[in-house]
Each structure stands twice: as C-alpha cells, then as structure tokens.
C-alpha cells in the first residue's frame, strides 16, 4: 500500500493557511514544531468544552473521567515506546524539561567530581546547558564526541572517549540541524559496556522511526508532544523503573506526595513522584491523540514516503547553483540545512517567505554545529509526512529567485 499523502493532508487544516501576500503556505519548519491533525485539536477541545475537571483527587464523575483520559495517554505512550510499565512514563513540559529532570534528579544524586558526562558535538542546546548547570553543582566533567564533515558522530572517537569515568552518555537520536540519524542501538551497547547510562534525546527521532526502549535497552528517553503532531508544552520522560526509583523528586507540590506533615512527607509512587502540580491535562490528552494518529498512519509506508521526499529534495537542492548542503550523513531524515554562497540565511528566509515558504534560519540551537562548519547560520527546510514533492519544487524555485535577486 502506498502512503496516501493527499488524504493525510486533509487532517491538517493548517496546511491550507495563507502566508504573506495571501500566498499558499509551504510549511518546511517541522523540526521546530509540527502542525496538528484535527484529531488532536478536537481531543483537547473536547476536554475543555465537555470534560474539564482536575485529575487524580476528585471523587466526582468529571474528575474520574478526566483522570482516565489523562492516564490513557500514559498507556498510549507506553505502547508507543514499548516500555515495560506505566511507572516508566513521566509527563513533563517537553524534551527540554525531561533532560533537565534527569540532570537535576539523577545527575545531582549520582555524579561526583571527576565523573564524566559524554555529549556529542551535534547536541541541541537543551542537551548541553542542563549538564553544564549540573557540572557547576557536582564538579563533573563534560566530554564531547566530535562529528565529521558529513555531520556524523565519529564512532571511533566515541569509543575512545568512553571509559570507566563515563557515568552517562546523553545524545541525540536525529539531529535537528543536520538531519543525521545516529546509530543509537550500537552507541547504547557501547555505553553499557563501559558501565555508563544512556539518555536518548528523541525529540526529532520519535516522528522519524519507531523507537522501542526495550529493544534499545536505553536508560532514559525524552521527547516533546509538539514535534510529534501534538500540543506544545507537554512531553515525556521515559526512564527505567529501577533507575527512576533511586532518584529524588524533581519539584515538590501536590500530586507528587502520599502524605504531608510539617515533620515528614511521603512521596508518591512512580511516575507521579515526578509530576508535581496540576499538569497540562488537555495537552497530555492531545498528545495521546497525536500518538494514536501517528501509529495509525503505518510506519513502513510513512518511512518509505519520507525517504522519497529526502531523495527528491537532495537531488533538487544539489542542482541549485552555489548551494552547500550542511549535513550529508548516509542515514538522514528529510531535514535540509544549507548555505548559499554570499547570501545570508536571514535574507533567504525572508525572501522565500514572500513566496509562502516557511523555513527556519539561524543556528537552530546548535551553535557547536555552526562552529564545526565555520558558519554563523544555516537555512533549514525540515519536512514531515504531509509535505510533497510539489512543495519541494516551489521551495527550490523560490531559492532560484533569491539567487537572481542577489546576483
């Protein structure tokens, strides 16, 4: 069966939005955030219009219903990641908060002066700065695995940097600025052989390919709802139960306790120990609808279609005069970062926006990647399964016009 992009596009009314000067939108900024299918907005709207109540403590009908809706997402996320137990699915504000939670709760507890945290040169700032904050507190050392000029992690360097001092490896699954898909299964095995834990930043990864936390044997995995066609402000931290049990709570408040007196507080069981305060209930419910939606598409057809878009995009962009692709990994998601000779990324972004084409320009929160390639910024077109080859044609024609304007 072929992937029916036309039918899928009908689920995303945002694709019919008009841009500047009423131009039809070509939305190529999916690595920043994805559009949401109607199924997601109707589920959050249903909660707000018909099923609003706070969760977990109410005895009344609406509260029990809202709790069931909210907890249904936990089961959907568990199945989506193939986690063993619901205790391993912690809801957060997003991938950033999930990493901060691990850095704060696991890092502060278990990292000692001289212990090493291993990152890669292609990490998003959200997988760099939380560890720097923990370095201040613990005296741990951050080591960085370099990338090659194709934008791939150099595995030999990775092996060389792993040692008995390495306590955790925290790395990205799919690079948001390069599109590189890392060989995470092998990387996790290598980390475990060295005795280190592995945190996988799957913010871009979970929409790219199925992720099985048990098959990967990964210790922590994080993602955001809004890059998976769900609402903003919600995300997931997966953690192995045996590790989460050893970690202190992240924040104090309601829901994360069993009993409170001024002398002693008993914390709640997993995963609620890490979910203080009333969460974004509607957002979590919407994320459940997004997970259902993605699972319903069928991975094999979707992956094949995105590979077609990738190959078509590479061919079309390679033909553009003076274009240098940044990130040419062998295993790549349809994320195209590039620079045009003598034309600054922001001028490209503004000029093609005039044709309705929405891309991201700048450093994409990966300044070390920009430094590696000796550039201040790139233009980045990031595609989702609802994008088309026709849209790539519009985008490439718009780039041609930019070049004409500047030369």
């Amino acid at each position: 069966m072929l992937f029916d992009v036309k039918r899928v596009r009908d689920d995303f009314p945002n694709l019919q939005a008009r841009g500047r000067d009423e131009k039809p939108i070509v939305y190529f900024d999916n690595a920043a955030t994805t559009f949401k299918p109607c199924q997601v907005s109707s589920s959050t709207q249903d909660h707000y219009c018909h099923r609003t109540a706070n969760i977990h403590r109410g005895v009344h009908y609406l509260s029990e219903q809202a709790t069931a809706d909210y907890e249904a997402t936990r089961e959907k996320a568990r199945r989506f990641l193939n986690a063993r137990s619901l205790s391993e699915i912690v809801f957060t504000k997003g991938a950033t908060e999930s990493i901060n939670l691990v850095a704060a709760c696991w890092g502060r507890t278990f990292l000692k002066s001289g212990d090493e945290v291993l990152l890669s040169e292609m990490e998003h700032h959200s997988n760099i700065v939380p560890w720097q904050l923990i370095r201040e507190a613990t005296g741990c050392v951050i080591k960085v695995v370099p990338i090659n000029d194709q934008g791939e992690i150099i595995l030999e360097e990775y092996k060389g940097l792993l040692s008995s001092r390495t306590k955790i490896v925290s790395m990205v699954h799919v690079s948001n600025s390069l599109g590189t898909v890392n060989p995470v299964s092998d990387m996790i095995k290598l980390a475990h052989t060295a005795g280190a834990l592995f945190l996988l930043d799957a913010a871009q990864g979970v929409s790219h390919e199925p992720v099985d936390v048990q098959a990967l044997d990964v210790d922590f995995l994080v993602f955001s709802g809004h890059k998976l066609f769900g609402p903003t402000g919600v995300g997931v931290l997966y953690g192995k139960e045996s590790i989460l049990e050893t970690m202190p709570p992240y924040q104090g408040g309601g829901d994360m306790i069993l009993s409170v007196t001024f002398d002693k507080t008993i914390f709640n069981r997993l995963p609620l120990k890490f979910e203080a305060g009333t969460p974004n209930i509607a957002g979590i419910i919407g994320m459940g609808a997004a997970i259902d939606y993605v699972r319903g598409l069928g991975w094999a057809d979707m992956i094949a279609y995105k590979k077609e878009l990738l190959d078509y995009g590479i061919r079309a962009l390679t033909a553009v005069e003076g274009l240098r692709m940044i990130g040419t990994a062998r295993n790549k998601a349809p994320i195209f970062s590039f620079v045009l000779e003598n034309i600054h990324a922001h001028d490209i972004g503004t000029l093609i926006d005039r044709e309705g084409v929405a891309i991201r320009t700048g450093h994409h929160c990966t300044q070390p990647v920009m430094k590696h390639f000796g550039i201040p910024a790139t233009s980045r077109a990031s595609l989702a399964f609802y994008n088309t080859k026709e849209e790539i044609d519009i985008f490439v024609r718009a780039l041609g016009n930019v070049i004409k304007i500047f030369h």
Partner: protein
Amino acid sequence: MSIHNDELYQQVILEHNKKPRNFMKLEPCSHEAEGYNPLCGDHLTVYLQVSAEGVIGDVSFLGDGCAISKASASMMTAGLKGKTVDEAKVLFDEFRRLVTKELDPEKDIHHLGKLTVFSGIWKYPSRVKCAILAWHTMKGAIDHAKVVSTE
C-alpha cells in the same frame, strides 16, 4: 511566481550589501563599539572619529551579517559623515521610529533622506533588529559602551 518589486530588498539595499561603503577599520578613531545580534549572528564594529567640536569627521564599520544589517550599516556611515554628534543622535531616533512605524516618512518631519528605503521593514518584525543594529552600535560608541546587543 515572479520576482517582487520588493519594498524591502530594493536595489539600493542590494547594492550597499554588495559594495558596502566605509567598510574598514578606522585608525586612529576616537570612538568604537561592537554590535551583536545573537539570534542571527549579525556582528559588526562601528568606528568614529569625532572632533573636539563634536563633528563626526569620519565613520566606518566592519563585520558580518545579512544584507539588511550590512546595507543599513553602510548607508548609516555614508549619512553620518560631517554631522555633529547631536545630529547623529537625532538621526538615530528618527531611524528607530522609522523602522518601528512610529515615524511616517511621508507626513512627519525628518532628516533621513535615502535612509527611508528601510521604511517597509516594520512589516517584518523579526528583521527590524537587523536594520537597527548598526545604529544602536553607533549610539553605543558615542555613549562609550563597549558591546551592544539588539536582543
């Protein structure tokens, strides 16, 4: 799809981007400051030679950035030569109001001359800081700030 007769990327802006005026370090100079736009990576240094009487004898800039920031810096240096520091401050204020649509070049009194080519930029809020970076940096240099950021 056609190439727009663009109110933002006008010929004069493209031309200043390609061949920026006064694109060099001024030595010696009485004032200099560095301007940085962390979001875009626009980065430039403005140099001024101001006489004891407060007249800008010479002004130049160096740096990297988008066409808007580079053209704006180039046109600013061309416009400031021979002006007094007080006149430069008036121009700074007028330019700032122009790019934020507080000043209507058709109706309000101003001294902007060719600099009004930037009048359409208010439609692109994310690019206003590109246009104004050189001006903030110049003002910073006059006010003896070392590093200026438009963030």
